[in-house]
Protein backbone atom coordinates (compact mmCIF):
# COMPACT_ATOMS: atom_id res chain seq x y z
CA UNK A 1 0.00 0.00 0.00
CA UNK A 2 2.76 2.36 1.02
CA UNK A 3 4.61 1.64 -2.22
CA UNK A 4 1.54 2.37 -4.28
CA UNK A 5 1.08 5.75 -2.58
CA UNK A 6 4.74 6.50 -3.17
CA UNK A 7 4.36 5.56 -6.84
CA UNK A 8 1.29 7.77 -7.19
CA UNK A 9 3.13 10.69 -5.63
CA UNK A 10 6.09 10.11 -7.94
CA UNK A 11 3.78 10.02 -10.95
CA UNK A 12 2.11 13.26 -9.89
CA UNK A 13 5.47 14.88 -9.34
CA UNK A 14 6.75 13.58 -12.67
CA UNK A 15 3.68 15.00 -14.37
CA UNK A 16 4.36 18.34 -12.82
CA UNK A 17 7.95 18.15 -13.98
CA UNK A 18 6.73 17.76 -17.53
CA UNK A 19 4.75 20.93 -17.03
CA UNK A 20 7.66 22.93 -15.60
CA UNK A 21 10.17 21.54 -18.12
CA UNK A 22 7.98 22.48 -21.06
CA UNK A 23 7.37 25.97 -19.73
CA UNK A 24 11.03 26.82 -19.21
CA UNK A 25 12.89 28.60 -22.04
CA UNK A 26 14.86 26.35 -24.35
CA UNK A 27 18.59 26.69 -23.69
CA UNK A 28 21.21 26.67 -26.43
CA UNK A 29 24.92 27.43 -26.32
CA UNK A 30 24.77 31.06 -27.35
CA UNK A 31 25.51 34.44 -25.87
CA UNK A 32 23.61 36.54 -28.38
CA UNK A 33 21.80 39.47 -26.84
CA UNK A 34 18.49 38.37 -28.34
CA UNK A 35 18.76 34.91 -26.79
CA UNK A 36 19.79 36.34 -23.43
CA UNK A 37 16.77 38.64 -23.46
CA UNK A 38 14.40 35.77 -24.27
CA UNK A 39 15.74 33.56 -21.46
CA UNK A 40 15.73 36.49 -19.08
CA UNK A 41 12.19 37.53 -19.94
CA UNK A 42 10.69 34.04 -19.65
CA UNK A 43 12.40 33.18 -16.38
CA UNK A 44 11.75 36.60 -14.85
CA UNK A 45 8.11 36.00 -15.70
CA UNK A 46 8.00 33.42 -12.92
CA UNK A 47 9.13 35.89 -10.28
CA UNK A 48 7.13 38.68 -8.70
CA UNK A 49 7.58 42.00 -10.41
CA UNK A 50 9.18 43.54 -7.34
CA UNK A 51 11.59 40.68 -6.69
CA UNK A 52 15.09 41.23 -8.06
CA UNK A 53 15.99 37.57 -8.04
CA UNK A 54 18.72 36.00 -10.10
CA UNK A 55 17.69 33.57 -12.83
CA UNK A 56 19.20 30.73 -10.81
CA UNK A 57 17.13 31.62 -7.76
CA UNK A 58 13.97 31.91 -9.83
CA UNK A 59 14.59 28.43 -11.21
CA UNK A 60 15.26 27.09 -7.70
CA UNK A 61 12.05 28.59 -6.36
CA UNK A 62 9.99 27.38 -9.29
CA UNK A 63 11.44 23.88 -9.05
CA UNK A 64 10.78 23.73 -5.30
CA UNK A 65 7.04 23.84 -6.06
CA UNK A 66 7.16 20.59 -7.99
CA UNK A 67 9.76 18.40 -6.29
CA UNK A 68 10.19 16.92 -2.85
CA UNK A 69 11.96 18.93 -0.16
CA UNK A 70 14.99 16.68 -0.29
CA UNK A 71 15.26 17.11 -4.04
CA UNK A 72 14.74 20.80 -3.74
CA UNK A 73 17.54 21.09 -1.21
CA UNK A 74 19.89 19.16 -3.48
CA UNK A 75 18.79 21.21 -6.47
CA UNK A 76 19.49 24.47 -4.63
CA UNK A 77 22.97 23.27 -3.72
CA UNK A 78 23.98 22.68 -7.33
CA UNK A 79 26.50 25.27 -8.42
CA UNK A 80 29.53 25.24 -10.70
CA UNK A 81 32.05 25.91 -7.93
CA UNK A 82 31.20 22.78 -5.95
CA UNK A 83 29.72 20.57 -8.65
CA UNK A 84 32.71 18.22 -8.36
CA UNK A 85 32.08 17.52 -4.64
CA UNK A 86 31.30 14.11 -3.11
CA UNK A 87 27.76 15.22 -2.38
CA UNK A 88 27.02 15.31 -6.09
CA UNK A 89 29.29 12.47 -7.12
CA UNK A 90 27.40 10.13 -4.77
CA UNK A 91 23.90 11.43 -5.32
CA UNK A 92 20.96 9.26 -6.36
CA UNK A 93 20.79 10.87 -9.78
CA UNK A 94 22.99 9.30 -12.48
CA UNK A 95 23.23 12.45 -14.56
CA UNK A 96 24.41 14.49 -11.60
CA UNK A 97 26.87 11.78 -10.55
CA UNK A 98 28.38 11.53 -14.01
CA UNK A 99 28.60 15.26 -14.56
CA UNK A 100 30.10 15.76 -11.11
CA UNK A 101 32.76 13.14 -11.85
CA UNK A 102 33.43 14.73 -15.24
CA UNK A 103 33.96 18.12 -13.55
CA UNK A 104 36.18 16.57 -10.93
CA UNK A 105 38.37 15.06 -13.65
CA UNK A 106 38.39 18.30 -15.62
CA UNK A 107 39.39 20.33 -12.57
CA UNK A 108 42.06 17.79 -11.67
CA UNK A 109 43.59 18.02 -15.14
CA UNK A 110 43.47 21.80 -15.00
CA UNK A 111 45.08 21.71 -11.58
CA UNK A 112 47.96 19.58 -12.89
CA UNK A 113 48.52 22.03 -15.74
CA UNK A 114 48.36 25.06 -13.44
CA UNK A 115 50.62 23.54 -10.79
CA UNK A 116 53.16 22.65 -13.46
CA UNK A 117 53.11 26.25 -14.66
CA UNK A 118 53.56 27.58 -11.11
CA UNK A 119 56.37 25.15 -10.28
CA UNK A 120 58.33 25.84 -13.46
CA UNK A 121 57.50 29.58 -13.47
CA UNK A 122 56.72 29.33 -17.16
CA UNK A 123 54.31 27.64 -19.47
CA UNK A 124 56.60 25.04 -20.97
CA UNK A 125 53.57 22.88 -21.63
CA UNK A 126 50.52 23.74 -23.61
CA UNK A 127 47.07 23.33 -22.07
CA UNK A 128 46.26 21.11 -25.07
CA UNK A 129 48.53 18.46 -23.55
CA UNK A 130 46.16 18.18 -20.59
CA UNK A 131 42.71 18.92 -21.99
CA UNK A 132 41.36 18.89 -25.51
CA UNK A 133 41.48 22.66 -25.96
CA UNK A 134 42.88 25.01 -28.56
CA UNK A 135 45.30 27.58 -27.20
CA UNK A 136 43.88 31.06 -26.90
CA UNK A 137 43.62 33.98 -24.56
CA UNK A 138 42.11 33.37 -21.10
CA UNK A 139 38.62 34.40 -22.24
CA UNK A 140 38.68 32.05 -25.23
CA UNK A 141 39.97 29.23 -23.03
CA UNK A 142 37.23 29.81 -20.43
CA UNK A 143 34.57 29.72 -23.15
CA UNK A 144 36.08 26.50 -24.50
CA UNK A 145 35.95 25.01 -21.00
CA UNK A 146 32.31 26.03 -20.61
CA UNK A 147 31.63 24.54 -24.03
CA UNK A 148 33.28 21.26 -23.00
CA UNK A 149 31.01 21.07 -19.97
CA UNK A 150 28.01 21.99 -22.09
CA UNK A 151 28.75 19.18 -24.55
CA UNK A 152 29.17 16.75 -21.67
CA UNK A 153 25.85 17.65 -20.07
CA UNK A 154 24.17 17.46 -23.47
CA UNK A 155 25.49 13.97 -24.01
CA UNK A 156 24.62 12.89 -20.46
CA UNK A 157 21.06 14.21 -20.90
CA UNK A 158 20.31 11.73 -23.66
CA UNK A 159 17.63 9.40 -22.41
CA UNK A 160 16.27 11.75 -19.76
CA UNK A 161 13.18 13.69 -20.77
CA UNK A 162 10.83 14.40 -17.94
CA UNK A 163 12.41 13.50 -14.63
CA UNK A 164 14.48 15.22 -12.02
CA UNK A 165 17.69 14.45 -13.94
CA UNK A 166 16.37 16.59 -16.79
CA UNK A 167 15.79 19.47 -14.40
CA UNK A 168 19.31 19.05 -13.04
CA UNK A 169 20.69 19.13 -16.58
CA UNK A 170 18.65 22.26 -17.22
CA UNK A 171 20.02 23.99 -14.14
CA UNK A 172 23.60 23.06 -15.01
CA UNK A 173 23.12 24.39 -18.53
CA UNK A 174 21.65 27.59 -17.16
CA UNK A 175 24.57 27.98 -14.76
CA UNK A 176 27.04 27.43 -17.59
CA UNK A 177 25.31 30.06 -19.70
CA UNK A 178 25.09 32.50 -16.80
CA UNK A 179 28.81 32.14 -16.23
CA UNK A 180 29.53 32.78 -19.89
CA UNK A 181 27.17 35.74 -19.95
CA UNK A 182 28.83 37.17 -16.86
CA UNK A 183 31.96 37.86 -18.91
CA UNK A 184 31.15 41.49 -19.55
CA UNK A 185 33.73 43.77 -21.13
CA UNK A 186 32.65 47.01 -19.46
CA UNK A 187 32.33 45.54 -15.98
CA UNK A 188 35.55 43.56 -16.48
CA UNK A 189 37.41 46.70 -17.43
CA UNK A 190 36.08 48.54 -14.36
CA UNK A 191 37.14 45.72 -12.06
CA UNK A 192 40.54 45.42 -13.74
CA UNK A 193 41.24 49.15 -13.32
CA UNK A 194 40.12 48.97 -9.69
CA UNK A 195 42.41 46.02 -9.05
CA UNK A 196 45.52 47.60 -10.53
CA UNK A 197 44.97 50.96 -8.82
CA UNK A 198 44.12 49.70 -5.34
Amino acid at each position, binding site marked *: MENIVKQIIMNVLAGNLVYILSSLPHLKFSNSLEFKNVVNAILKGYANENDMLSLEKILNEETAKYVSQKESELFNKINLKTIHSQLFQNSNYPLLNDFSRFCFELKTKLQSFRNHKIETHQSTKNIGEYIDLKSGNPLETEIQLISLQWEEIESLSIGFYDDFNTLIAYKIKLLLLLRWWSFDETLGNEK*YLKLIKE
Partner: protein
Amino acid sequence: MAEKILMNKNSLAILKIELKEYNTALPVFEMKEQQLKELIQNLREHISNLRMAIKKINQETSSWIAVFAEDVEELEKSVQIKKMHINHKEVAGVKIKEIEKIMLEDIQIDTFQTPLWIDEAIELIKKQKINLAFLKIEEENIHYVEEELNEARRMKNALKEVFIPETNQNIRKIEIYLGDVERLAIGCAKLVKKKKLIKNAQV
Protein backbone atom coordinates in the same frame (compact mmCIF):
# COMPACT_ATOMS: atom_id res chain seq x y z
CA MET B 1 64.55 100.42 -7.04
CA ALA B 2 68.31 100.45 -7.17
CA GLU B 3 70.01 100.54 -3.80
CA LYS B 4 71.87 103.74 -3.04
CA ILE B 5 75.59 103.02 -2.98
CA LEU B 6 78.17 104.75 -0.89
CA MET B 7 80.95 106.16 -3.04
CA ASN B 8 83.89 105.17 -0.92
CA LYS B 9 86.70 102.68 -0.82
CA ASN B 10 84.91 100.51 1.75
CA SER B 11 81.89 100.06 -0.51
CA LEU B 12 84.21 99.32 -3.37
CA ALA B 13 85.97 96.62 -1.37
CA ILE B 14 82.63 95.12 -0.27
CA LEU B 15 81.34 95.15 -3.84
CA LYS B 16 84.50 93.49 -5.11
CA ILE B 17 84.10 90.70 -2.52
CA GLU B 18 80.45 90.29 -3.53
CA LEU B 19 81.39 90.12 -7.20
CA LYS B 20 83.94 87.45 -6.43
CA GLU B 21 81.27 85.45 -4.59
CA TYR B 22 78.81 85.89 -7.44
CA ASN B 23 81.40 84.72 -9.94
CA THR B 24 82.07 81.66 -7.79
CA ALA B 25 78.36 80.88 -7.38
CA LEU B 26 77.45 81.27 -11.06
CA PRO B 27 79.21 78.13 -12.35
CA VAL B 28 77.78 76.18 -9.40
CA PHE B 29 74.24 77.08 -10.45
CA GLU B 30 75.09 76.49 -14.10
CA MET B 31 76.40 73.05 -13.23
CA LYS B 32 73.38 72.32 -11.03
CA GLU B 33 71.09 73.35 -13.87
CA GLN B 34 72.92 71.02 -16.21
CA GLN B 35 72.77 68.09 -13.77
CA LEU B 36 69.08 68.64 -13.08
CA LYS B 37 68.35 68.83 -16.81
CA GLU B 38 70.08 65.49 -17.30
CA LEU B 39 68.21 64.02 -14.34
CA ILE B 40 64.88 65.24 -15.72
CA GLN B 41 65.70 63.74 -19.09
CA ASN B 42 66.45 60.37 -17.46
CA LEU B 43 63.28 60.55 -15.37
CA ARG B 44 61.21 61.46 -18.44
CA GLU B 45 62.68 58.56 -20.34
CA HIS B 46 61.91 56.18 -17.47
CA ILE B 47 58.37 57.55 -17.13
CA SER B 48 57.83 57.20 -20.86
CA ASN B 49 59.05 53.57 -20.76
CA LEU B 50 56.79 52.81 -17.81
CA ARG B 51 53.79 54.39 -19.54
CA MET B 52 54.50 52.36 -22.67
CA ALA B 53 54.78 49.14 -20.62
CA ILE B 54 51.48 49.91 -18.87
CA LYS B 55 49.79 50.70 -22.18
CA LYS B 56 51.16 47.52 -23.75
CA ILE B 57 49.82 45.32 -20.95
CA ASN B 58 46.46 47.11 -21.08
CA GLN B 59 46.29 46.51 -24.82
CA GLU B 60 47.20 42.84 -24.43
CA THR B 61 44.52 42.43 -21.78
CA SER B 62 41.79 44.22 -23.67
CA SER B 63 40.96 41.12 -25.74
CA TRP B 64 40.10 39.10 -22.62
CA ILE B 65 39.21 41.84 -20.12
CA ALA B 66 35.63 40.51 -19.90
CA VAL B 67 36.66 37.63 -17.60
CA PHE B 68 37.50 40.13 -14.86
CA ALA B 69 33.77 40.67 -14.46
CA GLU B 70 33.57 37.27 -12.77
CA ASP B 71 33.82 37.59 -8.99
CA VAL B 72 36.80 35.71 -7.60
CA GLU B 73 37.59 36.56 -4.00
CA GLU B 74 41.15 35.21 -4.13
CA LEU B 75 42.16 37.58 -6.92
CA GLU B 76 41.92 40.77 -4.88
CA LYS B 77 43.81 39.28 -1.93
CA SER B 78 46.66 37.86 -3.97
CA VAL B 79 47.62 41.02 -5.82
CA GLN B 80 48.08 43.34 -2.86
CA ILE B 81 51.39 45.13 -2.32
CA LYS B 82 52.63 43.95 1.08
CA LYS B 83 55.61 46.23 1.53
CA MET B 84 57.57 48.75 -0.48
CA HIS B 85 61.14 49.70 0.43
CA ILE B 86 61.98 53.20 -0.68
CA ASN B 87 65.46 54.73 -0.55
CA HIS B 88 66.15 58.45 -0.62
CA LYS B 89 69.16 59.70 -2.53
CA GLU B 90 70.42 63.18 -3.26
CA VAL B 91 71.13 64.24 -6.81
CA ALA B 92 72.31 67.82 -7.41
CA GLY B 93 70.87 68.90 -4.09
CA VAL B 94 67.45 67.30 -4.62
CA LYS B 95 66.22 64.41 -2.53
CA ILE B 96 64.69 61.84 -4.81
CA LYS B 97 62.97 58.57 -4.00
CA GLU B 98 64.10 55.25 -5.34
CA ILE B 99 62.15 51.99 -5.03
CA GLU B 100 64.51 49.36 -3.75
CA LYS B 101 62.07 46.49 -3.44
CA ILE B 102 58.36 45.82 -3.82
CA MET B 103 56.99 42.87 -1.89
CA LEU B 104 53.68 41.48 -3.04
CA GLU B 105 51.37 39.20 -1.10
CA ASP B 106 52.42 35.61 -1.68
CA ILE B 107 49.13 33.79 -1.40
CA GLN B 108 48.86 30.28 -2.74
CA ILE B 109 45.94 30.19 -5.09
CA ASP B 110 43.71 27.14 -4.94
CA THR B 111 44.36 25.81 -8.42
CA PHE B 112 41.52 23.35 -8.14
CA GLN B 113 38.73 25.67 -7.11
CA THR B 114 39.56 28.93 -8.86
CA PRO B 115 38.99 29.51 -12.56
CA LEU B 116 41.92 29.09 -14.95
CA TRP B 117 42.02 32.74 -16.05
CA ILE B 118 43.04 33.79 -12.52
CA ASP B 119 46.66 32.64 -13.04
CA GLU B 120 47.28 34.95 -15.95
CA ALA B 121 45.30 37.76 -14.32
CA ILE B 122 47.40 37.62 -11.15
CA GLU B 123 50.68 37.79 -13.07
CA LEU B 124 49.43 40.66 -15.13
CA ILE B 125 47.98 42.71 -12.26
CA LYS B 126 51.17 42.24 -10.26
CA LYS B 127 53.23 43.55 -13.19
CA GLN B 128 50.88 46.47 -13.67
CA LYS B 129 50.89 47.33 -9.96
CA ILE B 130 54.70 47.38 -9.91
CA ASN B 131 54.75 49.58 -13.03
CA LEU B 132 52.22 51.96 -11.50
CA ALA B 133 54.13 52.14 -8.21
CA PHE B 134 57.33 53.05 -10.09
CA LEU B 135 55.43 55.55 -12.21
CA LYS B 136 53.97 57.26 -9.14
CA ILE B 137 57.40 57.60 -7.51
CA GLU B 138 59.03 58.86 -10.71
CA GLU B 139 56.28 61.42 -11.26
CA GLU B 140 56.77 62.69 -7.72
CA ASN B 141 60.53 62.83 -8.33
CA ILE B 142 60.19 64.75 -11.57
CA HIS B 143 57.91 67.25 -9.84
CA TYR B 144 60.54 67.98 -7.15
CA VAL B 145 63.41 68.05 -9.64
CA GLU B 146 61.55 70.46 -11.92
CA GLU B 147 60.90 72.78 -8.97
CA GLU B 148 64.57 72.66 -8.07
CA LEU B 149 65.57 73.25 -11.69
CA ASN B 150 63.37 76.35 -11.85
CA GLU B 151 64.96 77.63 -8.66
CA ALA B 152 68.47 76.98 -10.00
CA ARG B 153 67.57 78.72 -13.26
CA ARG B 154 66.18 81.71 -11.39
CA MET B 155 69.37 81.96 -9.34
CA LYS B 156 71.61 81.57 -12.40
CA ASN B 157 69.69 84.20 -14.34
CA ALA B 158 69.61 86.56 -11.38
CA LEU B 159 73.37 86.28 -11.00
CA LYS B 160 74.08 86.47 -14.71
CA GLU B 161 71.58 89.15 -15.67
CA VAL B 162 71.21 91.25 -12.53
CA PHE B 163 73.68 90.84 -9.69
CA ILE B 164 76.95 90.54 -11.61
CA PRO B 165 76.24 93.34 -14.16
CA GLU B 166 74.86 95.63 -11.43
CA THR B 167 77.83 95.00 -9.16
CA ASN B 168 80.22 95.53 -12.06
CA GLN B 169 78.50 98.79 -12.89
CA ASN B 170 78.57 99.96 -9.26
CA ILE B 171 82.23 99.09 -8.97
CA ARG B 172 82.90 101.06 -12.17
CA LYS B 173 80.92 104.03 -10.85
CA ILE B 174 82.80 104.06 -7.55
CA GLU B 175 86.13 103.60 -9.29
CA ILE B 176 85.38 106.54 -11.64
CA TYR B 177 84.19 108.62 -8.71
CA LEU B 178 87.22 107.75 -6.60
CA GLY B 179 89.46 108.39 -9.62
CA ASP B 180 87.85 111.80 -10.09
CA VAL B 181 88.26 112.57 -6.41
CA GLU B 182 91.89 111.54 -6.56
CA ARG B 183 92.56 113.61 -9.68
CA LEU B 184 90.81 116.57 -8.06
CA ALA B 185 92.96 116.17 -4.96
CA ILE B 186 96.10 116.04 -7.12
CA GLY B 187 94.92 119.09 -9.05
CA CYS B 188 94.26 120.96 -5.81
CA ALA B 189 97.61 119.94 -4.42
CA LYS B 190 99.36 121.14 -7.60
CA LEU B 191 97.46 124.43 -7.43
CA VAL B 192 98.37 124.94 -3.78
CA LYS B 193 101.99 124.09 -4.59
CA LYS B 194 102.04 126.54 -7.50
CA LYS B 195 100.50 129.30 -5.36
CA LYS B 196 103.08 128.62 -2.66
CA LEU B 197 105.91 128.90 -5.19
CA ILE B 198 104.54 132.23 -6.56
CA LYS B 199 104.18 133.55 -3.01
CA ASN B 200 107.75 132.55 -2.14
CA ALA B 201 109.07 134.21 -5.30
CA GLN B 202 107.30 137.45 -4.45
CA VAL B 203 108.76 137.40 -1.00
